[in-house]
């Protein structure tokens, strides 16, 4: 087959790339080596493990969806408009990344908690967030939102706006431009951001335990389960961590088909 070819990468580049891959993969191998394979199946199919896994998948999917819904508009506003204070806002949006998750959880508690900033409002509306699955989703969204915003904003800037102006001059309303031109063009960046968000939500621990608590089937996600198991049964914890890894890899590989370069 005829094939267009790229400029090619310098050969020396493969050395640090391999080093990097090893750095990420070796610890994984180390974990696999620690797994007590004899009892593996029992460990991971216990009721509490299955409940935690199911909860994690549901909440991570929900929080990823939420991230896309509010993160895409944020990235667009940051990348395609200019307004005073934009630079500060852009940095502030990154905060949940910097905040140790436990502090992030506290901050959420101070905001949505009964005596928090919005506590009174929520009480009037008879909405109870604490100790509910919604709290888990909120905590996960809070910590994973910056991932989507930052990586999508980078893609939007790299892609530029030439096609958008062409589309507008053909009479497309901004909404049409967004739907038919902008989003399809930055799809790789959007997918990357969504994958990052999903992965971060799957691994989220600190903010969840602080803000949502830990009750089996309601708020105890897989990381919380792993953490608990670690106290009583480190082997089970390792086995569960492996499950988390495998599930995440599968979801990510499915979510992220190798997209042919345009």
């Amino acid at each position: 087959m005829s094939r267009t070819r790229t400029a090619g990468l310098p050969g020396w580049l493969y050395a640090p790339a391999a080093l990097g891959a090893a750095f990420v993969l070796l610890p994984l191998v180390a974990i696999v080596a620690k797994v007590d394979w004899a009892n593996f199946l029992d460990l991971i199919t216990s009721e509490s493990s299955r409940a935690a896994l199911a909860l994690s998948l549901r909440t991570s999917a929900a929080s990823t969806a939420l991230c896309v819904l509010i993160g895409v508009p944020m990235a667009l506003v940051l990348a395609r408009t200019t307004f005073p204070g934009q630079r500060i806002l852009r940095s502030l949006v990154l905060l949940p990344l910097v905040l140790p998750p436990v502090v992030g959880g506290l901050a959420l508690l101070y905001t949505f908690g009964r005596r928090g900033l919005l506590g009174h409002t929520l009480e009037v509306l008879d909405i109870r967030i604490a100790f509910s699955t919604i709290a888990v989703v909120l905590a996960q969204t809070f910590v994973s939102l910056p991932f989507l915003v930052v990586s999508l904003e980078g893609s939007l800037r790299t892609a530029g706006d030439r096609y958008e102006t062409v589309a507008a001059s053909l009479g497309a309303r901004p909404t049409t431009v967004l739907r038919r031109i902008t989003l399809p063009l930055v799809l790789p960046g959007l997918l990357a951001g969504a994958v990052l968000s999903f992965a971060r939500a799957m691994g989220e621990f600190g903010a969840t335990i602080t803000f949502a608590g830990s009750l089996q089937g309601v708020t105890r996600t897989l990381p919380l389960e792993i953490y608990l198991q670690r106290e009583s049964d480190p082997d089970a914890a390792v086995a569960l961590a492996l499950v988390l890894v495998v599930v995440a890899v599968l979801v990510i590989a499915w979510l992220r088909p190798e997209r042919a370069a345009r």
Partner: protein
Amino acid sequence: MSLEFTATVADRGLEVAFEVATGETLALLGPNGAGKSTVLSVIAGLLRPDTGRVVLDDRTLVATDERVDLAPHLREVALLAQEPLLFPHLSVRENVAFGPRSRGRSRTEARAAADAWLDRVGAAELGDRKPGEVSGGQAQRIAVARALAAEPHLLLLDEPMAALDVAVTPALRQTLRQVLADRTTVLVTHDVLDALLLADRVLVIDEGRVVEEGRSGEVLAQPRSAFAARLAGLNLLHGTWRGDHAVLPDGSQVHGIVAGPEPAVGDLVVATFRPHAVAVYLERPVGSPRNVFATTIDDLEPLGDLIRVRAGQLSADVTAHSVAALDLVLGTAAQLTVKATEVAIYRL
């Protein structure tokens, strides 16, 4: 007055004002970097001028003093930019259908319109490809189809005939002639034939200033700016078609080759030929040139290393040596001849 344009763009050194009547086609000519594309960007709303005012029909598109600045998609102006910029993720057909879809046509209608336009630019068989899979000239044709399919109030074309091969150029030029006939258009081109055939008026810009303006034939026949002089070189005669030749108002006949659709007997036509092709004789010669105009020399004007001989409506470019040999002076009676093969006849 359909389009009214005044704008300055300081960092590109542009300061231009002009008007285009409804249904009229204006050709923008000028050297590279003159500011032609900049003018189109301002009209399309992709560039906000420092000061200026652009009014299309009754709608103010931009008016810096009134702080009006309509969004591009509300302007009903379609721009064919200098680069094709086809949307890489849409098929060729979807690219062309994009304008109709955006203006509210149904999916089926838009696809039908896209196919029709693709056919007119000779790219019918490319509909299902992605823009990354077509050649440069094919991309240009598709971009033309996309701009035309948008059916805007005002059409802005930046070098629509660039990158096209000699086989398709005449056909596309005919298509554009038909399409532009009753549409308000601003056309940027480097090709004098396009300016002449497609445009009613021309505007010559140089270094951001208008240096010449007028009806196409007039500007090109009697250029005043250096750039227009370069472009120029065509004689233009208006007449009536008689089946195999045109008759001028003074009764003389013009034979030539019909370009484009065959005119019907009685149609108004224009005959064009280059002053270079006009020969000057003192007596009527016998030979293949079938167009002979008996005239008197009005003017002799140096034009580089040539002499432009003006006689009535006609110009002939001859070498200084010929002028000397024939002893041409003002008032000399002369026979101007031009071969029929040199004369292109177009239906108006």
